[in-house]
């Protein structure tokens, strides 16, 4: 059994807002749902599968009701919550449901207001008494990974900075990007230290906003007007300290989700023309590139240096919308926008200055949770038909 080629992304929508004091979170979900449904050329009443994660107010049943989905037709619901990569996991689960005949038009939504609203607290796990007091945050959890990666492999702040530099080169062409200025390695190194060894410019932005996808059958996708983009490989995985045995923070669950996706697709990292890689921090990108096999473990620093991730300059154009480092990071969750920019590239709808010529194979990969503590990873391989 495989989901290879059995589901197509027929609709995408990224909310243009980065600051939404005048909107509710549910409203943003509705606006991105409407956008993706219209992008596909479908109607709300066609939707028979709905996917959402922890950002959806109240979970799936209040959202299904609020969105006015056709409950006589809706026959598949999934609220898998794995932080920022939830939506990449949803994409795979939607493909599974479609392949099994459980739904034919799936809607996936993400939206929220970390800048102008209240973020719901994360539920505590069994580890709470043994960890909460130590104040793990995104900054220091990823900082701990970077610190050990530098120790084990000689990775440098200059190499990490190149990731931000590449993102900024792309963001200058995105009118919606929060940070449009091209920055240099020196700019990154001169930005204040937030949590060693990560500087402010090693960190992504905080933004309101959201995004949505429509995933459907090959037959329905072929009947619609948009260029056809299909899922040909998918993987998901989780990693944690697991009782503290053999702790190694220099790799992520991407070492498992990546090969699962590439094996299903029957391709290798060398075949990829464009990469959307979750960039909560620069170290996230560096570790994911290694874990996905774009370079060997420990050689990520060399791989990302000297503009290798800049479209038209380097060998692996990444995050051509400016990514989380420069464009947006809706609800502190980067998975959705990673898929959306990959679909734009495959459709040929990216900004002409960053569009990869003849882009037929792309990867969208993300992590969720805290890389230095417990996290999930998910990988999607997408193909233009």
């Amino acid at each position, binding site marked *: 059994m495989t989901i290879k080629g059995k589901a197509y992304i027929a609709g995408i929508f990224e909310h243009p807002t980065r600051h939404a004091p005048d909107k509710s979170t549910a409203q943003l979900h509705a606006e991105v749902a409407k956008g993706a449904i219209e992008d596909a050329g479908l109607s709300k009443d066609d939707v028979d599968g709905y996917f959402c994660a922890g950002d959806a107010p109240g979970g799936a049943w209040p959202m299904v009701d609020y969105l006015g989905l056709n409950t006589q037709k809706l026959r598949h619901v999934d609220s898998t919550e794995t932080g920022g990569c939830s939506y990449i996991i949803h994409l795979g689960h939607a493909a599974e449901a479609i392949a099994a005949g459980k739904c034919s038009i799936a809607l996936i939504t993400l939206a929220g207001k970390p800048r102008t609203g209240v973020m719901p607290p994360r539920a505590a796990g069994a580890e709470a*008494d043994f*960890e909460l007091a130590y104040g793990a945050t995104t900054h*220091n*959890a990823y900082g701990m990974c970077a*610190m050990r990666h530098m*120790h084990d492999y000689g990775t440098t702040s200059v190499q990490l900075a190149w990731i931000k530099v590449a993102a900024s080169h792309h963001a200058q062409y995105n009118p919606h990007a929060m940070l449009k200025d091209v920055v240099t390695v020196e700019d990154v190194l001169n930005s204040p230290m937030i949590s060693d060894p990560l500087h402010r410019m090693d960190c992504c932005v905080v933004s309101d906003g959201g995004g949505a996808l429509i995933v459907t059958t090959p037959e329905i996708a072929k009947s619609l007007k948009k260029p056809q983009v299909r899922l040909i490989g998918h993987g998901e995985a989780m990693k944690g*300290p697991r009782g503290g045995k053999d*702790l190694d*923070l220099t790799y992520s669950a991407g070492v498992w989700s990546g090969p699962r996706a590439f094996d299903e697709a029957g391709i290798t990292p060398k075949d990829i023309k464009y990469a959307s890689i979750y960039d909560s921090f620069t170290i996230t990108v560096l570790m994911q590139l290694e874990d996905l096999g774009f370079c060997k473990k420990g050689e990520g620093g060399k791989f990302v240096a000297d503009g290798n991730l800049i479209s038209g300059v380097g060998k692996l154009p990444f995050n051509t919308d400016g990514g989380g480092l420069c464009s947006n990071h809706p609800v502190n969750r980067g998975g959705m926008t990673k898929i959306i920019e990959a679909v734009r590239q495959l459709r040929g709808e990216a900004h002409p200055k960053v569009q990869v010529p003849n882009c037929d194979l792309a990867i969208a990969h993300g992590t969720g949770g805290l890389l230095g503590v417990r996290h999930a990873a998910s990988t999607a391989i997408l193909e233009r038909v």
Partner: protein
Amino acid sequence: MSEAKKYSAPVTNAETAPFWEAAKQGKFMIKRCTACGEAHYFPRSICPFCYSDKTVWEQSSGEGTIYTYSLMRKSPTGPYAIGYVTLKEGPSLQTNFVDCDLTTLKIGQKVKVVFKPTDGAPLPFFTPV
């Protein structure tokens, strides 16, 4: 700075209460599985490695080395250093480093456990030897 910081008391539960009772006596406990011999942290009833329920409490030396750390430069309660310690007994665990110059921490540095008070059981932290 760290002395002045107030920490919330652990909630505790039936599975972990012996850890916190021992902490009140200044003892830092880990769990070991008598079936596979592996130690683990934080403590569970069922061994996370072999799924045996034959796990027993063991007093740790409280000594270890810094696996990694990150100095959070700003927070509402001031700077703090989070990290992982690899205990002599094997397991690695998350902690904060306290009672030291936070800017001189090094991976591989030797550290030992120290307890800090709460309104309930004290919490384990680590400080350079």
